[in-house]
């Protein structure tokens, strides 16, 4: 599998990142290298190995459906770069 500059730009776009041509070129090479390294795993015979669905060997961690008072709004908004009338404010979204 050869990672191309297009793949890098596609993934970058999904992550809301922009790269210069030079950076994308460099990144393509590095990502390709990483993926090739991982491809070694494909050489292993895993016929008798059950697929791992989760990293932790535990299940069913639940809590009861009991309401606890929510947070103070001003605390929640403290780190927000922008706010208005108790709401988080972000650059205008156009649909």
């Amino acid at each position, binding site marked *: 599998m050869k990672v191309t500059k297009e793949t890098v730009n596609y993934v970058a776009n999904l992550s809301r990142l922009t790269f210069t041509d030079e950076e994308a070129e460099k990144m393509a090479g590095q990502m390709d290298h990483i993926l090739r390294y991982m491809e070694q795993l494909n050489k292993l015979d895993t016929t008798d190995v059950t697929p791992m669905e989760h990293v932790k060997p535990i299940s*069913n961690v639940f809590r009861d459906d009991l309401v606890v008072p929510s947070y103070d709004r001003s605390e929640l908004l403290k780190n927000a770069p922008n706010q208005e009338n108790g709401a988080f404010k972000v650059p205008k979204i156009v649909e």
Partner: protein
Amino acid sequence: MKYEVVMGLEIHIELATNTKIFCTCTTAFGGEVNTHCCPICTGMPGTLPVMNRKVVDFAIKAGLATNCTIANFSKMDRKNYFYPDLPKAYQVSQFDLPICEKGYIDIEVNGQTKRIGITRIHMEEDAGKLIHDEGGTGSLIDYNRCGVPLIEIVSEPDLRSAEEAKIYVEKIRSIMQYIGISDCKMQEGSLRADVNLSVRPMGQVAFGTRTEMKNLNSFKSILRAALHEEKRQIKEIENGNIIVQETRRWDDDLGKSFSMRSKEEAHDYRYFPAPDLVPIKVSDEEIISFKNSLPELPQARINRYINDYKLPEYDAKILTNSKDIADFFEEAIKYDVPPKKVSNYIMGNVRKLMNINNDEVPPFTGEQLAMVIKLVSKGTISSNMASKVIGFMYEDPKNPLLIVKEKNLGAMNDEGALIKIIDEVISQNQQSVDDYQQGKKKAIGFLVGQVMKQTKGKANPQTVNKMLVEKINNLK
């Protein structure tokens, strides 16, 4: 050319839990902006979500009530996309191992039973709400809804008309209300449907290209949006254009849909297992005990109405369509009134008023309806007046006897006055009297109508009919 429409629905249902899916914030509707929030549901780094047990219980019940297989092993996944209504930049949902799979429900279309497949039901969290401030410099976000538990019910592409889609949503809603996992209030967004729709020439096996319309939150908009999209696609094809696979936004006010290409690029969700949430295991014993705990479902109630109350199947189906109406019916018949009479009033007068007022339940009780029926059987009011009383009772749910007195709606029991009116009607409508005498028995109906008109509907039509017949027979 004749076309066939193919539809599949994704229905999002907000679960009636007290708290959100991963934190202890309330799910109460409304509330001041961002006051039902905490670091977990606003996606602060370093927080640890913990699954609400009730969400899993409710999802399992929904699956059992729709004939799904419940997974013994299920897990949560992250669905990644950037949109400010989602503070974590991912939605916790289920990807390849949903809690329920491969179910079905049966719906009635034009008197025929049709089976609609349920592909899967999975659990997920709701997003926040964007407040677009007109002319403002940015968009505002309220995260009160963020993290409210949802189930998404995905159907097979088995629906073949907008009407079928509407019936299917009604049935799903009714089932979910019966098992008590959601109030399904559409006006509060507790039930929203995404409609996937394509058309194909009649007889063609392959599906056409489909479009998706998201977040339809009323039966009316589901019906209208589906009909409109069906027409739009057929027109495009007839004009030689091809259908583009896309998300379209339905504008219910304009009655039109619009392309939302802006959202297209984000459809690569890069799902992966949610590392902070552990898998969910459900044993066969637990599934059986959930099955036994389910309340009476619509189908069982239909059978009971047919067998125990001797109602026609048609009545039984309509009454049980909504749990609230079925409960209303059952309350009324407790008061010793014939079930069929109660059913007639509910399906007639009451349902009509509910439709006009866009209500899900009548404002008066089943007992009050039973009282009206008794007033008719005792002869206190005529059956014509009963609908007036119900109308007044709908506006102001008072004791029906009080309404009869206040509005002077009592039956005309003054024989003398009635005889006078009957004599007048007979003399003024000689033609109908002749017709009747010559064997046209239907002519009596017209005369009864005339008398009822003169008495402003207060007379008992059966009595009038009897008196008229006697009178005319004596004329011979």
